[in-house]
């Protein structure tokens, strides 16, 4: 029982990371109907940048802020250069481009910082509470708090600000939004920018645990894809719930199903994706889409 609760706590913390990356994926998907495979690697590049700034002696907070600004700019630039010209193209074209971006950003990190792993400073403070034998670390709690803050911020942004309303409109009705004077391309670019920041946050949360390396985000992006598929590609709450479910399922599967163990953890998100596609293809919170004619 104790082990079960412990694994659920660990799973929720990991799930918070997947959820923040899944939020980024959902943001991009809502804005532009694109699944950005490269989201994790873009976040990775920014995390490397933050690490480099810290290594150069920049204070932690300032380095993170600078890297966050850079991640926003990166999202906007990638959208403007690589995605906007093919926005109307078929799904497979865009998947190929995103795969190219994925390979490119990973290679860029490898080229600049080499294949060795780097220790990333723990962003969250270190405490351990023990409640009835269950270890609760501050970094686990912190991840959930970061996720809540991100989610609340995003909800406020979309609900109560004019720009947020514009972004929702641009995502829902691209052509009609133009008619009422919304700068649709700018809104879509902003969606990509915000997603870039979310991806960066996910990378920073992951980095102290997995150590910074060019292939760090590969498994995380697969969990995040599973989370977004599970929750529904159009729903931000879905991404969060999906992320937490994937995290807990991974943690429980790895410790309670002997065949899976630590080596085959990746099977869990895959099984969840397959299950979701079979039973409820639009995801838990998703709305079934109708084919566009």
């Amino acid at each position: 029982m104790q082990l079960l609760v412990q694994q659920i706590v660990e799973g929720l913390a990991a799930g918070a990371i997947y959820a923040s990356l899944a939020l980024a994926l959902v943001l991009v998907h809502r804005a532009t109907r694109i699944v950005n495979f490269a989201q994790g690697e873009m976040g990775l590049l920014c995390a490397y940048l933050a690490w480099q700034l810290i290594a150069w002696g920049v204070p932690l907070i300032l380095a993170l802020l600078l890297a966050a600004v850079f991640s926003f700019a990166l999202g906007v630039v990638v959208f403007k250069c690589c995605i906007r010209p093919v926005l109307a193209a078929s799904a497979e074209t865009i998947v190929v481009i995103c795969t190219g971006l994925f390979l490119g950003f990973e290679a860029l990190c490898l080229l600049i910082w080499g294949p060795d792993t780097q220790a990333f400073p723990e962003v969250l403070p270190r405490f351990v509470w023990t409640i009835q034998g269950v270890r609760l670390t501050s970094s686990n709690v912190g991840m959930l708090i970061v996720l809540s803050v991100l989610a609340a911020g995003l909800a406020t942004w979309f609900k109560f600000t004019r720009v947020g309303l514009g972004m929702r409109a641009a995502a829902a009705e691209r052509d009609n939004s133009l008619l009422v004077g919304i700068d649709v391309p700018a809104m879509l670019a902003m969606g990509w920018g915000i997603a870039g920041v979310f991806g960066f946050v996910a990378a920073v949360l992951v980095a102290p645990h997995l150590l910074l390396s060019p292939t760090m985000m590969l498994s995380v992006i697969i969990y995040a894809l599973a989370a977004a598929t599970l929750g529904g590609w159009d729903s931000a709450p879905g991404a969060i719930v999906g992320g937490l479910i994937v995290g807990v399922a991974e943690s429980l599967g790895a410790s309670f199903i002997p065949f899976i163990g630590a080596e085959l953890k990746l099977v869990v998100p895959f099984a969840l994706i397959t299950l979701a596609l079979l039973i409820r293809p639009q995801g838990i919170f998703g709305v079934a889409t109708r084919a566009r004619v």
Partner: protein
Amino acid sequence: MIAAGKLAALGRRELGLASLLLWILCAILIPLILPGFLVYQISVALTYAIAILGLNLLLGCNGQISMAQGVFFAVGGYASAILVTHTSIPALATLPIDAVITGVLGFLVGIPALRLQGLQLAITTLGLAAIVPPLALKLDWITHGASGISLDKPDPPRWFPGNQDIWIYVLCVLGATICVVVMHRLLRGDAGRSFRAVRDNALIAAAHGIDLTKVRLAAFVTSACFAGFGGGLFALANGYVSPESFQVTLSLNFLVGAVVGGITSIQGAFIGALFVVFVPDWAGEVSPALAALIYAVCLVGLMLVARDGVVGIVRSLLARLTRTTIRERARALPANPNEL
């Protein structure tokens, strides 16, 4: 109009004939001129080309994207290796068995994924590609884990003048030729027409009585068969399989090869295969990251600028060269780069 169509057909036929001649010429000259290791590398490239052919069928002709071509390649490779080492089935007879096994696997994977559009397929297949290497490690009672399976490469028959490397090369050439012929027949027939119809406009295709799910599944299964066949051939040519040969990057490499060569062309699969075999070799001497960077630039750049890869560029160059002599062809037939 009719004359123009005839001329266009003639142009295409000439291109096909030229490719055929080039193919025969290369097939004969390569083992005579090049050193042994290069011949081996080209054999491997040919097995990759078979998998890429399958991907072209799926991606270029049916408009579906799979990131799991490497998975079927791996399954084919392991199936051949296991059959050769554990049973008395002759090595070459394992290849059709590989194709059947991967076809069944493709059917099982395709059913959940194909009910939806390309995106979900891409995600599911990417997940599949990611779990295969750890799965191969885990199932060590049959795959021998990280140490892999060594198998005897097929020996040349007594009448064959060359050594074993050249015999394997000949087998790869023959295997690739069979696949090209199958692909060619498939695409020229009803199957190919329905594949393309589904790609171009699913609604209209459905209105013409094409069962979308059935056609998509058929394309997926066929492409999996190609990959399995290629993988089996790879195992025979390489004489060794291990999880190391079938990382996620293999599936991505196949995608790169397909895009670089041209996703709708048969010739493109071979250009793409040579690209993904030799470019990392050369680029790796400068930096291990360079190859991936070149891949990235090719994927993004070609998709933005030249969707039909090298073959597309060659075709448009040829069209430009011949435009002065057969001007009406350009006028009567709007350039349709998607047509095979």
